[in-house]
């Protein structure tokens, strides 16, 4: 072998070694989620991350939604689990943090936390030490879907106040259109339904009175707001007690119903099911003209780092990147979710409108404040609301059950 050839061979060997070393030093981290349907979008996002961080490769691993809490808790308790874990918010997150399974995040490890608004951070904060453990990923807005074509055809204008809502609903019903598509057949959504229509009657003052312990759910304002829900029964489809949220969605997108109390998380779904739909998403009816339009908002969850991860540094790097505007812009565009990151540009007109509504939104009271211990407000409300809507209990009874149940762990309600 000539010297030149030997030199070339050595150079090639060194290059190959360098490549091999590069592969050997690359860090593979896993991202665990229940959002199986978002795989393509996340893989695209993770590819962008790897472009910026060639040493880190992210593997998307998803699990069935209904088993996700059990899978995550079993894995974490065994010292395993993904490096970055997609978490639900509030009480769900808190039980894991309490057990020490997630790494705290601060501005030194996750500088992009600075891009998050305060109410979003609450969703990922552990109440006991006030530290953030999960970077919020999306806000969810609850309001009223409007089928604009149905309204145009009926010669009606979508309502803004409660009185208008009743008048318009009567007119729609007379024309053989279901005014409101919703039924009471889906427990988790029933809780959302209550929040959507009661929040405009409650207002921010009620929230602060409730959280400061000045009042309870037995408050006449809450009982009266519940009473308003009973008026809706006349404008829901026949047999509404047994109509689930999926059917309601079908009634709405097919034009059989004019309005649907729903969540911004379904905008993409409805569009994919009926690309021709001409819809709007507005604030639910206000108590009276001149009030501030109030949608309901909560944060669905966030991204946490497994405290036992062998690749904590890489995992924190990924989470930090998921808090940047670059991520938020693309995340919103790909998934039709509203990123809470400040300055994110939402190109979709309807989603941008929802983001605007968020500026005056009310928190989802039950989800944000009463899902931390058992019995949760959700368990109590979901059980009672169908009874109230079918007339077997009164709003007063529901309010009392909710207050007394929560008093088991929520000190401000004790003895009231």
């Amino acid at each position, binding site marked *: 072998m000539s010297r030149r050839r030997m030199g070339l061979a050595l150079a090639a060997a060194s290059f190959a070694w360098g490549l091999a070393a590069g592969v050997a030093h690359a860090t593979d981290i896993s991202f665990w989620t229940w959002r199986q349907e978002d795989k393509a979008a996340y893989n695209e996002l993770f590819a962008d991350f790897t472009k910026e961080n060639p040493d880190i490769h992210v593997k998307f691993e998803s699990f069935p939604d209904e088993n996700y809490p059990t899978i995550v808790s079993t894995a974490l*308790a065994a010292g395993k689990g993904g490096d970055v874990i997609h978490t639900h918010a509030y009480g769900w997150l808190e039980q894991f943090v309490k057990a020490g399974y997630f790494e705290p995040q601060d501005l030194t490890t996750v500088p992009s936390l600075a891009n998050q608004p305060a109410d979003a951070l609450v969703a990922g904060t552990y109440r006991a030490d006030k530290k953030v453990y999960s970077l919020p990923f999306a806000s969810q807005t609850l309001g009223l879907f409007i089928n604009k074509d149905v309204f145009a055809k009926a010669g009606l204008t979508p309502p803004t106040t409660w009185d208008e809502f009743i008048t318009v609903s009567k007119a729609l019903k007379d024309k053989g259109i279901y005014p409101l598509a919703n039924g009471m057949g889906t427990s988790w959504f029933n809780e959302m339904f209550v929040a959507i229509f009661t929040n405009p009657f409650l207002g921010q003052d009620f929230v602060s009175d409730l959280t400061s312990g000045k009042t309870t759910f037995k408050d006449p304002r809450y009982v009266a707001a519940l009473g308003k829900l009973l008026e809706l029964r006349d404008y829901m489809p026949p047999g509404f007690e047994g109509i689930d949220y999926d059917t309601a969605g079908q009634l709405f997108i097919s034009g059989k119903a004019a309005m649907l109390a729903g969540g911004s998380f379904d905008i993409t779904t409805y569009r994919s099911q009926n690309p021709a739909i001409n819809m709007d998403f507005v604030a639910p009816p206000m108590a009276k003209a001149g009030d501030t339009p109030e949608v309901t908002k909560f944060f669905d969850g966030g991204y946490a780092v497994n405290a036992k991860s062998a690749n904590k540094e890489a995992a924190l790097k990924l989470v930090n990147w998921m808090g940047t505007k670059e991520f938020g812009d693309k995340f919103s565009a790909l998934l039709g979710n509203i990123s809470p990151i400040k300055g994110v540009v939402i190109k979709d007109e309807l989603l941008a409108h929802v983001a605007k509504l968020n500026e005056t939104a009310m928190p989802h009271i039950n989800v944000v404040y009463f899902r931390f211990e058992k019995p949760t407000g959700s368990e109590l409300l979901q059980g009672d609301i169908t009874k109230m809507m079918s007339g077997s209990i009164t709003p007063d009874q529901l309010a009392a059950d909710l207050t007394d149940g929560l008093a088991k762990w929520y000190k401000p309600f004790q003895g009231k």
Partner: protein
Amino acid sequence: MNIGRRHTTKAFPWRRSLWIASLLTPALVVMVLFVLWPLLSAFRLAFYEFNGLQPTGFIGFENFRKVLFEQPYSGWTYNALKHNIIAFVALMVFENGTAFLLAYSLLKALPGHRIHQVIVFLPVVLSAVIVGFLWKLFLHPLFGLVNQTLALVGIGAVPWLGNESTALGSVLFANIWHWLGFPTLVLLAGMQRISKEAIEAARLDGAGDYVLMTRIIWPLIAPSITIVTILTFIGSFNWFEIPYVMAGLTGSPGGATDVLGLYFYRTAFGSTTTGIQDFGQGSALAVMMFIIVAGVTAIALRYLRRREIEL
């Protein structure tokens, strides 16, 4: 060869024991690992405060006290228990009662009885989840087959699964439709074992169908009735899939379809929307279910076996 083996076994009895033990070991290991150990763990967990995440703390009978005597848990427990009992009674009367009549008609080999037998037994081979989905669709207030049919005679949309007074009955109906073939087959097998002479003798003595069924067949198929009763009891207390698929994990509407299996699952593993897990309280419910099922089954077996002998 045989003699040699016998000789070996006699000379070395421990070898025979070793041989049996080696055959039993794999099954025993599986039993201990996957049945006994989880069962004992569930019993142990029932006395601990444990959410599946943090170290446990022994709290004695606290979990039992909560599910039996502390609102709102106790209210949920008794509501679910009540529905299990209703399910047992309804299944005994409607499912097994119908099964008895069907078995008798099949025994008489009326024209078309083979097709009849296939039709009755066919749903049994379906998965409970599929049956649940099927009946959920059939009972849909707006688009379901049942309501579409009722609409033809002017009856409006009935929210079968959304109304507190009809929800449990609807779920039970689906369950009966699913399982009817099973007790029918067991009872038919019992009837087929009765000697033809006994039936013919009764016929000659002038016994009609009613007398034949109540005086001859009913007592003579006592072992089959014991099996059907015990299995119905166990089934109605372990009831889960069909109520879960048709009415959801929370037993909607307003707990009208809640049963102990759903309540136990919700408590232990948390629901998707609430997510708070409580393995301790869930285990207490599971232990209670175990005690009820094992206790009542033992008592019922004793009573029913005695009845078989007396008959």
